[in-house]
């Protein structure tokens, strides 16, 4: 009896959902150009660009600051809508077919230039960019995962968006990518 009980406990310990599984988000899927709706937000990836470097123009008259990378910069242009309550769009990762995750850069590309730096209220969608550093050989088949929640702890919904990065498209983007891409601060005087 004791042995049976121990065996049952061991089986339960190994086959019940883990902490991470219990807190996993709801995933909703979509493609480039399509509006993907989670429970409290909607996101559209409108365009994807590659570049060897970024130049950040604060609009203050100083020369743009340069951000180089050992891989390539992938810049995704997004439109995000809050469906229920104000939110900050804070989490975006590239997920490669071989299981790697590349977080959007929120340190070298600061808040003035990217979408995560602004509060989005219901009824007023916002457009902006998120930028990622990624090795060239990881681009093909990569999808973008996005949610308003900053940390991986219990996001409610995550949008998983196919960026259309087939091998041929990646080769074309790499061949045609500019030496640098200019990002202008949303607070730059026009």
């Amino acid at each position, binding site marked *: 009896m004791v042995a049976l009980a121990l065996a049952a406990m061991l089986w339960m310990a190994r086959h019940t959902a*883990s*902490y*991470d599984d219990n807190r996993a988000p709801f995933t909703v899927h979509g493609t480039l150009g399509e509006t993907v709706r989670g429970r409290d937000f909607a996101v559209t990836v409108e365009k994807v660009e590659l570049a060897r470097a970024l130049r950040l123009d604060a609009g203050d008259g100083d020369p743009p*600051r340069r951000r*180089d*990378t*050992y*891989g390539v910069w992938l810049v995704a242009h997004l439109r995000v809508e809050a469906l229920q309550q104000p939110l900050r769009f804070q989490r975006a*990762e590239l997920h490669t077919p071989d*299981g*790697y*995750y*590349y*977080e959007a*850069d929120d*340190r*070298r590309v*600061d808040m003035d230039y990217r979408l995560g730096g602004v509060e989005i209220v219901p009824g007023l969608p916002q457009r902006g960019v998120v930028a990622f*550093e*990624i*090795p060239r050989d*990881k681009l093909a088949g990569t999808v973008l995962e996005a949610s308003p929640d900053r940390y991986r702890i219990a996001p409610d919904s995550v949008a998983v968006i196919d960026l259309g990065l087939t091998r041929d498209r990646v080769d074309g983007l790499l061949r045609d990518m500019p030496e640098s891409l200019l990002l202008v601060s949303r607070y730059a005087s026009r």
Partner: protein
Amino acid sequence: MYRRLAQHLPNWISEHPRLWSGIGLLLVVGAVATWRLGGFEAAPPRPLPRFGAESVITTNEWRMRPLKAWIADGDSGGTFLMVEMWLENRTQRSESLFVEALRLAEPGKPWRETKDPRTLVLPSDPSRGIAIHPELPARVVAVWPLPSASMDHAEFHVLNRTFVERTALIGNAAWARARPIGVLDLAVEDQRGSAPAKESKP
């Protein structure tokens, strides 16, 4: 008394009392001699491998190649120990926390009580911390507040962590069980008084 004891012993012992007494006496003498010679004391810990500048140090999470170390003044005050290195993220996720990997050794303190670097910055842009992405090695500078007035060399505990699918406490997946696997020893150059290093936000 012995006869009473002998009644409870198996025949093959009770029939050869002197033999077994002799064996017992030898065992006691051997145990006492081993104790006196220190045979029951804990074995001294094996010395950990030592690394220097340009060594490649590989842990489960990181591959590091330390280049140089120096002391510099922070632009908002304070003095800092800086270690420049090539750093590669061997995990499958971007990581902005460089913890339980390299800790500045302090005399008299066990490794668990020593400190991780306050931040990692790029040499070209030390104004802010950075994330290290998988398979994108980066040349970075690790920054520690300087514990003493000056130093001409510094030692660091090199730590390795293991990925645990389910931790014991709450059952999540995490890097844990840090343990030292080596010691990094670097000569330290004093660059105080030259152009101040910009202290990054933690």
